């Protein structure tokens, strides 16, 4: 580290700037940079519609499909997993999410790998901080 001074440090700085710029170009061309992940998703079904589809999938026993729709509903209306909100889906839902995670980890439920990811998202959201 002691050798990293003067022109060597300048050269390293310039190389890192070039790398960061190249990475920025890659990110910009590979995704919509202004994509908003959770708020203002105007297209597609509403949160209520997704909740209905989630419940219907649950009745059919399709946990993967149910979790996809719960996730979409939460993206559109995060308050449904806020335990202090009147819109909260309820303590039963809380227990259900925990059970799904536990069962998916043990392999007790047959579901696609994405199901555990979606259930984990619901958990992080439900107990989450300010993100």
């Amino acid at each position, binding site marked *: *580290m002691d050798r*990293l*001074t*003067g022109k060597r*440090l*300048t050269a390293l*700085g*310039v190389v*890192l*700037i070039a790398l*960061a*710029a190249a*990475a*920025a170009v890659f*990110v*910009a061309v*590979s*995704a*919509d*940079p*202004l*994509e*908003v*992940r*959770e*708020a203002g998703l105007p297209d597609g079904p509403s949160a209520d519609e997704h909740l209905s589809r989630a419940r219907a999938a649950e009745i059919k026993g399709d946990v993967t499909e149910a979790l996809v729709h719960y996730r979409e509903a939460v*993206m559109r209306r*995060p*308050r449904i997993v*806020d335990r*202090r*909100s*009147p819109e909260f889906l309820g303590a039963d839902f809380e227990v259900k999410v925990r059970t799904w*995670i536990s069962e998916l980890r043990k392999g007790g439920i047959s579901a696609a790998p994405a199901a*555990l*990811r979606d259930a*984990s*998202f619901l*958990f*992080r*959201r*439900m*107990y*989450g*901080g*300010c*993100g």
Partner: protein
Amino acid sequence: MIRKVFAYPESAGALAVLGGLFGAVAVGLTVLGNPASSGLCASCFLVNVAGALHMHAKSSQSYLRPELLGIVLGAFFAAFSSREFRVRGGSSPALHFVGGAFILLGCEVFIGCPIKALLRTAGGGGAGAAGLLGLAAGVAFAAIFLRDGFGFREKTTIPETAGLALPAIAFLLLFAASMNTDLFAATGIGVGANHAPFVVSAVAGIFFGAAGQRSRFCVTGSIKTAVLARDFREGAGTVAFLAVALLLNVALGNFHPTVTLEPGAHTDLAWAFLAMAMVGFGAILISGCPFRQLVLASTGDMDAAAAVAGMLLAASLSVTLGIGSSPAGVAPAGKLAVLAGWIFFLGMGVRQRGAA
């Protein structure tokens, strides 16, 4: 003894006691209603305050955080009573403004400031720990630039009234908030706006500000001093913060080692590392993390005030442009903000060597 710890904390023991108290109060605020791992998070609080001041429209992240206003007032009174309130500035305020903005954006991509990185790690969060490692790496990298002569023009003394503006605004906002006026954006029911009781938060904020001013508590600063000067006294405060928060979380049953189930976090460890590395690097170059900038601004440092103004603007942009991360992941705009921050700070680091 009390005077040694609270008025002139210099020894590792005194700084560790204050750091431990910081950690205990921060965890206490979470128990009383603040969001998970957010007993003290300068960047999250700035986003909340920006929302309350109608600078963004996301009600779930809008709340005029009494902690933040308390930090300003506590630091101001501590500096004033110890005759350390001195208004100074003129050391590249524009660079501090833009630098402050990028630091805040980096924090929002990670989801939390360096202090929250400690709290998230103390809760068992894998992404929190990745961010903390990134922060330390960024600080160590910045130390190379400091060793090679990085600096700004020396600050000059400026008229005292300028330094009173921020404490005065904080006092007025805190007073107005205590009156329950409808001046501020309605506090939405939302995880980001969850909070401890108003008076408790305000008192805790005043403690954070006063103790922060006396102890110079700064996560990034303590790592820098350890790396550059092999002086571990400030580090004792940071380690004590982490240790007390960890012990309390274990005692309260809130310690859950996990990557995928960390409350309110995303699971992208690489971007958590990279974002906090940028925060650590930039914070050293502009002399402080978001909490430290708030404390410095309250004691009359107008360059830090410029950084705070930049952070407030960035807090608004973070929500409006979808830069901030969420449990769903890191947004492309957030990745671009981190890379742009790296380019800005690297350029500044290369350009400002020998400028002091």
